[in-house]
């Protein structure tokens, strides 16, 4: 899976979770997306896991800093 495909599917996840279109880049963080609070973060991570059929190890969930790192992790786990 290449980054473009991951981004396309990720955009649709964000659309469903936050109910709006979100422009995503590697640098996007929670601060950039209205509604991305600590509670919705859980929903987001869960929905991403569903979409890509992956399960993030606990230490990775804690460590991810931005969307770029999330995409890296998805690609790594779906190899």
């Amino acid at each position, binding site marked *: 899976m290449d980054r473009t495909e991951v981004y396309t599917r990720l955009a649709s996840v964000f659309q*469903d979770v936050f109910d709006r279109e979100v422009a995503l880049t590697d640098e996007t963080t929670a601060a950039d997306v209205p509604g991305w609070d600590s509670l919705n973060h859980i929903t987001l991570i*869960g929905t991403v896991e569903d979409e890509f059929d992956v399960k993030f*190890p606990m230490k990775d969930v804690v460590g991810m800093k931005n969307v770029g790192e999330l995409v890296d992790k998805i690609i790594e786990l779906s190899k």
Partner: protein
Amino acid sequence: MEDFLRLLQWPLDGKALARKRIALRRALLERSGLLEKRIAVLGGSTTHDLVAFLELFLLGNGIRPIFYESEYNQWWEDAVFGNPTLDAFRPDVIFIHTSVRNIREWPALGAEPSDAGVEETVAKWRAAWEKIAEKFHCPVIQNNFEYLPYRLLGNLDGTDLRGRVSFVRRLNVAFADWARTHDGLYINDICWQAADFGLARWHDEAYWCLYKYAMSREALPTVAFNVANIVKALFGKNKKALALDLDNTLWGGVVGDDGSENLELGTETAVGQSYTEFQQYLKDLSRTGVLLNVISKNEPENAKAGLAHPQMVLKEGDFISVKANWEPKSENLKQMAQELSLLPESFVFVDDNPAEREIVRQQVPGAAVPEIGQVENYISALDHGGWFEPVKLSGDDLKRNAMYRENAQRVQLQNSFTDYGAYLDSLEMKATIRPLESVYMARIAQLTNKSNQFNLTTRRYTQEEIEQAAADSAFITRYGKLEDRFGDNGVVAISIGEVKGDVLELVLWLMSCRVLKRDMEFAMMDEMVAAAQTRGVRLIRGFYYPTAKNGMVREFYKTQGFTKVSEDAQGNAVWELDVSGGYEPKNHHIKIDR
């Protein structure tokens, strides 16, 4: 929209629900006639996602919830010490979402095995329930405990009193004992739900440590679905009747083609056994008060031959209504509902044929039409649906099928009379009409929540509120219980009036449709007026608030001799009857026991 609604039915697709929930919520909120309820969720873990799912399932049941959520793990503090926000919230229901993660003190391995720890733990919860009962007078839904995902003592964990499996089991028994002996506490059995779901998938250590989720994200819809089923049952949104197909639903094969002697039924074949077990399940279900009916595309004599099959567990007498013809099933269902004085949406329609299911879905909105799969899945599909979720089994529930059968006999008798009054006299009716009594409180509360059609104000009461009204001298209350030569109809009518000076305002007036046209409403009015007159009341004031379902009583007060004094654009009307100059009793056919 219909596809959306199917997401709310068993089997649950947690992933799709989570993904689509915002759009689903939006669509559900557009539906009209939603009943608003205030629900306080007191959590022992994170409740954010859980509440979101709960909202969807409640909306699917026609209930629009307004939520209060306790701060993280503040369930006990909120319940016992209260807080201003919760106090002002005035909940209609409180849901205590605790789990095995909230057990603080486990039996010590070094100690003598004993039961003491169970009592200590239960005492903590009991303090919360008692405080809530005292303060909020509302029903409480309480999770019991699921097992931990590990067993320190292996299989001995369930036997040794120091084992945690054993501890959880005994706590659950203690919770159930309390719920059985105290009104207003309802157990949400997450122990069973976790077993059904799979304990290994239920627990998610990562989500617990990261987000303080008591159970996995995947399991949350199951919990929310079950809680919603209890809530909807408390507020009278249960289904009441089944409409069952025959061919390949109650038996294997098509009776018109194969002949009744060749149907698959009974224990000789695996498939036959499956149908027999499904019938046994239905028979047991009917004993809880669910009404069984048949809608089948068949020649009547073929249907009859099938129903007379010696291996049938269900006999013709187990069904209230059997419709075997070639009319569309949706039309049969509507007609059947009318004949039984039920609403079409009170039915669950069970048919193996997807085309029949689809037409009923489209033509009878509100009726439940589960996907039932193959015969070996019928029981599971119907059972998990939670359509009939009882919150309490009253004597009336257990007798309901008999009552409906007796009604069918009354109709036969009625046909033999030309004079309706003579028919009523022949029924030899006896009514007990008295102030609300404690033995009937559960049934009375149930009636206020289930009656939709013959209900003037559609005011819903919890059992606690009913008890308060009964104890308050500002109110005149009466229940009516009706017996006749065919049997006991049980408690069928409730009236509550509030005395305001020399005026009696009828805040609640309802009757079960199973005793329509028996003059019971006149007997009730006679008693209310008589009671009011002894209190110096000179004027009786009645209210009619229209809903989608109570059109049949729009002119009720007119038939009682009242005069309409006002009516607004929505049809809300106020009626009055002056009783200062006397009152002529209107019941002539029912003997009254006061």
